[in-house]
């Protein structure tokens, strides 16, 4: 396939993979920070770059049933969070297509 290049973001405050510091998203793309993941705090982002998605699975969370895909950093293949494909509850529909990144697996690269 060739060399895999990273995308670089331009912003004041960029979040990156804790392991390899690949850029993942901007501070401005945060929709909410009031989420909890397997490792503690998690943030909901509008857009992330440099990630690969895995196959969708159905999971039950505190807010209901969802279909999610785990996302991994493209460079170091560490799981950094998940992406919502579908939410069964109508009040959770806003999450569809958005990404959750776990705060523990992120670092500030700016």
């Amino acid at each position, binding site marked *: 396939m060739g*060399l895999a*290049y*990273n995308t*670089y973001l331009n912003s004041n405050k960029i979040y990156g993979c804790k392991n390899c*510091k690949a850029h993942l998203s901007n501070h401005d793309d945060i929709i*909410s*920070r009031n989420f909890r993941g397997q490792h503690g705090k998690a943030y909901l982002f509008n857009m992330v770059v440099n990630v690969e998605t895995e196959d969708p699975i159905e999971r039950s969370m505190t807010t209901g049933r969802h279909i999610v895909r785990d996302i991994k950093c493209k460079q170091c293949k560490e799981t950094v969070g998940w992406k919502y494909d579908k939410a069964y509850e*109508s009040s959770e529909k806003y999450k569809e297509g958005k990404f959750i990144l776990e705060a523990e697996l992120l670092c500030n690269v700016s």
Partner: protein
Amino acid sequence: MEGQPKGKRRQRLLNRIQRISSSPSLAQLGRPRASSAPYGTRGTLSCVSLAGTSPFGQHTPSSSSSGYFSNGQSIPGSPTVEFPAFDGIETRLAIRKVNNGSTPCLTSALPTEFAATRSQSGTAVRKLPYDFWANMPDEIRVHIFSYLRPKELVRVSRVNKEFHGYCFDGQLWTRFDATDFYQNIPAESLAKIIVAAGPFVKDLNLRGCVQVEHCKRAEVVVTACKNLINATLEGCRNFQKSTLHNLIKANEKLANLNLTGLPAVTNSTCRIISQHCPQLATFNVSWCKHMDARGIKIVVLNCPKLRDVRAGEIKGFDNIEVAQAIFDTNRLERLVLNGCVELTDDALRTMVHGTKPEIDILTDRPVVPARKLRHLDLSRCRHLTDRGVAALGYLVPELEGLQLSGCTALTDSALEPILATTPYLTHLELEDLSELTNSILSEHLAKAPCAAKLEHLSVSYCESLSDAGMLPVFKKCVSLRSVDMDNTRIGDLVLAEAAAMVRTRAARSSVRGSRPCIGLHLVVYDCQMVTWTGIREILSWNAEIRNPSGTAPTYPTEIIGLKCFYGWQQTVDQHTQRVLRGDYSAAGRLERKWADYMQAVEEAGATGAGIRRRRRRAREAQLLHADEEEGGGRRRARTVASSCAIM
């Protein structure tokens, strides 16, 4: 030829028009087509062409005269009408009138090359064609090329050898910035360009170029660059250690070096830098896993001009010698140690006041010269406590930026001395410090000498902070440009206060068409106490057209940009867009409709009674709203939030 009577010439001319066929039949004309002239000069065109028929002797003087415009010396009264005949370029013909007598030629010049080749006789006075390109001095040619971007330069270099030479002229490549094309350029081209530019390159940015070293061409690159001043090799993770060392050894003038994230960087790299780069001013080695703080110490001690050190997540900062070196040299203006979890209180204290300083009896403070630090980033240094951070007080008078996010053990007492003694503070980041209380804001920040200058404040996730703390801050810190208060206990009062502050500080404009700009960014999502009424307050103040009685209405020049609960964010964004366009009435309509909708939602309650009525009202409101938008009928997906304040 000139002597022939006018009438006879014309007659002959008209005869010839009819005889010419439109297809180029050069055999009749008796002149080979493939002449050196690029345009087939004697071939006839499908349009009227009179040039081809007359014999050459008669022909050429007039043809030569046709080449020169406003040339008073051309043979006066050239008899034949001259239609410069070149194939396929009819559109460029300038039709000339028949020249009678002394009227000078009126056409525009033919392309100079072929006008020269066309003229056969030397009798006509000729102006030599002017080859602009060849006669231009080299510097101007290079200047023309300097307007092209790197990718275009590479493309243009394939035109011919001369252009190839110009395109790879070193003067065009003093700044090599691969940011736009690092993903597309193969390693050989990269190497070729850098080698061609060679010692001219002063500013090299290879961020993200992982292809360098894949072809083992980096050696060539490294030997070519000798005059680098700025070098950014962030993300070139395939760079080898020896190559990097050679690069540094060859470039004595390096001033700004960015080696973020390179596994090739070790302490010996730092040693080489300290020996070979005396001009080093900024040094960024964040996340270099194979080096530690001792390398930083070597560089700090030996580079007299070093001002800016960024060493995020570098291990070994508990080493007191490193701290002592930083204290002794006292040259750093920016020190970034975010994520250096090993940093201890003692090391920080040593950095600030050295080991065992003399303590002033009266004030109980160390007597040492003040630090020159302007910017200090200690985020996520988890082991720091009040004892270490409080030592910064009184000793960093020029501090402009301070980041202590994530140092969770800190309390108010760490910040009190700092806030009291840093009059130039503009950036303050205190995220995730849950031990902070309102008094640090109301008693200390609001009354601090830096209050009027503070521009950026971040107190996200400080769960004990609430209105009582933030209200005085908004009253006193009038230069604020961005405030992050998400995940705190602030409420609507703070939003109203922020709106009032912006209103007071911003000039009003009387010009109707003037557009405001965003003067303050607020981040308030995830705050439980913020309700839609607070948001509405801000929106209404953003779009307010004040109309004091008797005078002209005034319009806002500065508004607040808001990030809030996702359910309302779309409305807020739409409102802000309208205000920024200057469309205050539409913004006002949107705000009123949204307020009606939210009130209906509230009255009806979460579930049960009135849910149908509420849904109907919601649908009506949405339809009304959709109608009144320009471009009408565009349905926006409105979140039917059953309860506003809850996630």
